[in-house]
């Protein structure tokens, strides 16, 4: 196990599963160099834990399907690297949990099973921990049509297709999303259907869907590869795509398989900016 998680348990006192989440988090942080986030304190004063969360991949431990810890992470705009739901784990391992809040043999056995599972799961953790290479240091060129502002990142690592999707390429990975042209045309985005993690995507293949009350937009992938991560925050807050489609509103991360070929069919900032300007003027957003 990568020994540097920020661990956010739900720590709920409504059910035994919540107590287990807290106990599991404590064990994770005693036995390894992980950092615990107190969900109660985090709601009141977030400065300390925002720093911890920005420095470590986040492991969220929910007690049950109410998913309070996941919701808290979404509220704080945190990227979740790993999720554990105690009731799901109990069901998976045929363990019946107490109806009271005491941790007995069954509950402690479950904690050990989950701990062993996390310790053995190094490959997934390694893949996810590389996300931090995608910085949010974009430099934008701005175009205004009427009252609507359209930004296009000038960074050379950002490529576009003519379907108004972008790819931010660092090494053998790309983060993808839609441009301001899409989110302004759609207006308030209400639904986000992500691609499946692990799925193989062709260049110009479909990689998810976003929907507003006006219409549905199918994302056309600028690159080919395997989907290794999705922006889970968008499932609760798809409006982040409207707020900033290049930073908070990114859609998925792809492990690239043939970027040298893909690149030949992509366009850079200069060309995309002119295309977008013309489309905007013609479509009268």
């Amino acid at each position: 196990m990568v020994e540097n998680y920020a661990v956010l348990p739900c720590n709920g006192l409504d059910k035994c599963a919540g107590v287990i989440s807290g106990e599991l988090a404590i064990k994770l942080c005693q036995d390894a160099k992980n950092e615990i986030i107190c969900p109660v304190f985090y709601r009141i004063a977030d400065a300390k834990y925002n720093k911890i969360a920005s420095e470590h991949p986040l492991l969220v431990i929910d007690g049950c399907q109410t998913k309070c810890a996941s919701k808290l992470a979404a509220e704080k705009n945190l990227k979740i690297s790993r999720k554990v739901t105690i009731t799901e784990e109990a069901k998976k391992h045929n363990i019946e949990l107490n109806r009271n809040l005491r941790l007995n043999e069954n509950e402690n056995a479950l904690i050990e099973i989950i701990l062993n599972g996390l310790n053995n799961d190094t490959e997934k953790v390694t893949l996810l921990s590389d996300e931090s290479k995608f910085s949010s240091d974009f430099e934008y060129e701005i175009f205004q049509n009427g009252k609507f502002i359209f930004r296009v990142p000038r960074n050379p690592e950002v490529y576009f297709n003519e379907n108004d999707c972008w790819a931010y390429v660092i090494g053998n990975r790309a983060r993808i999303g839609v441009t301001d042209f899409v989110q302004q045309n759609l207006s308030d985005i209400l639904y986000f259907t992500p691609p499946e993690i692990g799925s193989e995507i062709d260049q110009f293949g479909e990689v998810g869907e976003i929907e507003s009350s006006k219409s549905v937009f199918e994302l056309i992938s600028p690159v080919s590869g395997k989907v290794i991560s999705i922006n889970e925050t968008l499932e609760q807050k798809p409006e982040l795509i409207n707020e900033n489609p290049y930073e908070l509103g990114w859609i998925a991360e792809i492990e690239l398989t043939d970027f040298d070929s893909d690149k030949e069919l992509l366009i850079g900032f200069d060309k995309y900016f002119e295309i977008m300007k013309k489309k905007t003027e013609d479509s009268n957003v």
Partner: protein
Amino acid sequence: MYKKVKVVPCSGIGKVFGLMAREAVLKTVLELCPEKSETVCLAYIVTGDIEVKEKIEGSNCITVDGCPKMCAAKNVSIAGGLVIEKLRVIDTVKEHKGKKFGSPTQLDADGEVVISEIAAKIAKKINELN
């Protein structure tokens, strides 16, 4: 003396959600809870004089915003209103996937269904206070 709950919509003019916020609030204060609630113009709360500031400050307020920009919730809080509930039209709209609701000028039948649901949520909150 019972102080009516202030229910404040954003009434944004550019989107159907703004009209839905407005209509849901009017349904509440005119039809569902006329004795227990009243509405106040958001623009007047922001730009108005002592009279409206005194009306809002320290009062229980429910805000209804059309979109995630949350203009009503923000402005009522700044004006000193006690926002006991912040409703967003889009949260109810999300439960009606695939439907169209009308235009920023006129709601259609599905739009009326949604505003009735929102008005019911507002009324429930108002009644809980008594």
